[in-house]
């Protein structure tokens, strides 16, 4: 009897003290993406894309589909923390960061430095370390208002685009790690609005797409790699799954395109007589996907020629990117610094403080081995009379 009274008392104690962390799902404002901008007066503006829960189930309510299932709220403050606390005042429900996997920085903010924002995002327990960061070409907020025709909200579209090509995305942790590490540089996808040419769709019914890579050095954005150079960068990051490469043969009258099926980049740093050399070995295997020429890839010699040509093409492309990163940006996005550090810790400790000066001087030797594995369903070029095929 006494024991049961005790148990009752304990239960009452529990109920009286309440439940501090409890939030019902109806009281959550689920953030699907967030954009951080720097305003002209130096203030920070946070805009969040909030999910409207009833949008999924009630398809029959007759809401305008172009409004989408999200809406955008914003707030400004002296810094990000301030802005977010202001934002909470504009939203009647509790802001829920747990599912926000997309953070977009406005270009102004990126140019001014992102360290303070990164600190907030990593320190705060809400946002997750593996959420993706982006830099927008213009104001970041604009991208949140887009209503994608296929996905439920623009954040999801962006996330899926990035997941397609892993090397492209930069997560919060990657950025933190890279800026902390030897090179102090990082690349973040550079996105802009895709302009759709469909006359029936409204202007905002589109998605943001990745246009290149924003290069950051010591928290500040210093430039952008275009699409082609970004491909090169993906090779350097050991992730190139779907970038098709086209080459032109000397005796051919068109181009041959190949899609890589597997590829590997191997870095081996080397220090020879005070010359810092980075040997880059790329091996690639691929399928021929289009043949504009009259050449028959079934032929051994032709195949050899094609492979050779691929090697030079790829080499050029990668070299171009490295050249730009070394000379123009002087940003060690490929983590050369770390690789030297790992193999040559003593030499590294000498140049550690002036890696900036040393990095452009690093010689990069690129070796490419290309192999064509398959040429699709057909051997010789299609729709070409047999006698016109060159052997």
């Amino acid at each position: 009897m006494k024991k049961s009274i005790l148990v009752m008392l304990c239960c009452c104690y529990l109920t009286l003290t309440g439940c501090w962390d409890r939030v019902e799902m109806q009281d959550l404002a689920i953030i699907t993406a967030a954009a951080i901008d720097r305003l002209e007066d130096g203030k920070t503006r946070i805009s969040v894309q909030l999910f409207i829960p009833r949008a999924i189930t009630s398809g029959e309510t007759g809401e305008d589909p172009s409004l989408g299932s999200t809406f955008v709220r914003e707030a400004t403050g002296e810094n990000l923390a301030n802005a977010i606390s202001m934002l909470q005042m504009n939203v009647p429900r509790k802001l829920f960061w747990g599912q926000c996997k997309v953070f977009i920085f406005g270009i102004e903010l990126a140019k001014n430095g992102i360290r303070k924002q990164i600190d907030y995002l990593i320190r705060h327990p809400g946002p997750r370390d593996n959420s993706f960061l982006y830099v927008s070409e213009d104001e970041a907020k604009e991208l949140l208002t887009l209503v994608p025709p296929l996905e439920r909200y623009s954040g999801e579209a962006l996330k899926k685009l990035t997941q397609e090509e892993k090397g492209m995305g930069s997560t919060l942790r990657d950025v933190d790690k890279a800026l902390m590490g030897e090179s102090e540089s990082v690349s973040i996808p550079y996105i802009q609005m895709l302009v759709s040419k469909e006359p029936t769709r409204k202007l905002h019914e589109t998605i943001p797409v990745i246009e290149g890579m924003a290069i950051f050095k010591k928290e500040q954005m210093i430039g952008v790699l275009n699409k082609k150079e970004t491909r090169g960068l993906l090779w350097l990051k050991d992730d190139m799954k779907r970038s098709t490469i086209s080459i032109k043969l000397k005796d051919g009258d068109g181009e041959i395109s190949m899609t890589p099926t597997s590829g590997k980049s191997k870095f081996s740093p080397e220090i020879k007589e005070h010359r810092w050399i980075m040997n880059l070995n790329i091996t690639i295997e691929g399928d021929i996907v289009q043949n504009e020429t009259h050449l028959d890839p079934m032929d051994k010699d032709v195949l050899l020629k094609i492979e050779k040509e691929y090697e030079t093409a790829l080499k050029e492309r990668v070299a171009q990117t490295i050249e730009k990163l070394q000379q123009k940006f002087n940003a060690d996005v490929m983590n050369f610094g770390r690789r030297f550090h790992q193999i040559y810790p003593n030499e590294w400790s000498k140049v550690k403080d002036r890696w900036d000066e040393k990095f452009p001087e690093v010689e990069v030797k690129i070796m490419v081995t290309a192999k064509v594995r398959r040429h699709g369903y057909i051997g010789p070029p299609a729709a070409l009379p047999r006698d016109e095929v060159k052997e």
Partner: protein
Amino acid sequence: MIRIRRRPSKKKAKGHFRAAQQNPSHNTLLSKNLEENTQFFSSLYEESSDVVFRSFVVGKKGATIIYIEGLSDTQKLDEQVLETLLDKNEFDETDFLLSIKNRLPISNIKKISTFSTCIDSIANGSPVLLIDGFEEAFSLGLVKFEKRSIEEPQAEGSIRGPREGFTESLGVNTSLLRRIIKDPALKMKTVHVGKYTKTKVVISYIKGLVDKTLIEEIENRLNRIQIDGVLESGYIEQFIEDNPYSPFPQLLYTERPDVVCANLLEGRAVLMIDGTPFSLVAPVSFFSLFQSQEDYYERFWMGTFVRTLRFLFLAVSLFLPSVYVAITTFHQEMVPTDLLLSLASSREGVPFPAIVEAIMMEIAFEALREAGIRLPKQVGSAVSIVGALVIGQAAVQAGIVSAPMIIIVSITGIASFMVPRYSIGLAIRMLRFPIIILAGFLGLVGVMLALILIIIHLSTLRSFGTPYLGPISTQQKNWMQDTFIRSPLWKMNTRPRLTGEYNAVRQGANLKPGPNKSGE
């Protein structure tokens, strides 16, 4: 060492009870005078129209047969007893009783001399023959009463396995056991329990396999029981279990002779109670309550798979609603994005907090289940249809309950029926509610605390001296062979260790069948 908790018995109450039971006239010997004896019995059985007194004269001496209508075989009584006794043949006067005994064509005939044994004999259906001038009477074993025929057990069905089930009469049940285990080592000890019902309780065990102290302990505990009557094995169970406050059953009940025999062969003791088809098995462990007999009849892969499934669904039925409450109210980030969005949409507009919703729906489900069992079959199905419609369809459409909660409740419901033993299923159902409440206050940490509490409770529990969580938590030899997995029969060479490892070897080694062995 076997440690058995003894409940303090209150001396005062016991003494009082004894006093009431000792009716002085009961233990006294029969008198020589038939008149006195009949007088006593008729006053004892006054206002009992079903008790028949038949007086007659045998060899010049008066005699009376007393029996209860319906319990005794009157036809045999007429043909074999009365016809013989009323025959004009002379009985040997020197040893009258012996000559009567010799003359009667009845196999089971006993000499009795006290009133109380007479009463017992009459109550059991054996007519009592009183003869004038003797202090002794005969109990004639002409028991015959209506009993149910052996049927397939309703509560424990099986696809493969014997179709026999116990019935309400003890004699049939013990005979069923004897028919399976023919070794004379199978023992049956009888204890009577209940002041008014005088129910026969048989402790059966296999001598040489069972631990003697266990039998002594069971007898002690049975002898301690002082109640009016025993109507079902549950009465006995509640008086002899180790921890009466625990929600977990510490004895296993079954109405299948094959289950009983399997347990006997593993060195356990079985209590069979007159008047109920359910017999009790002791001691049991938590894991043995998840074994069904069919696990052993099917191939061991199936047995293992089904068992794994059972434990999985044990976890589901215990924790699913509480985990759902914890996740949706505390740890929303755990839900995958798409799922969270649909959950959020379906929760939109639901007026209750998740915890209230969960408790409400679980209670509704339990009510439905209970109603379905108790009502007559025709009405029962109607109840379930109405319940399913109201809860499943209307409540969601009205926006009172969210659809995911319905899914959760139904999965939990199904999961709770996965447990082969009804009694532990009940315990799990009940425990679900406090866990939901804890989850509502502390989220998953609360669920974990609940899990810890359950584990602690199970670790403290003992069933007749054996640890309830054995053999898993006690890490005995071969502890895996018959718990989560069911290893092949030819590999289970040892009996599960119960109290004081007694005769551990079950079968010969190297029994693995194979094509080469038979040819040798």
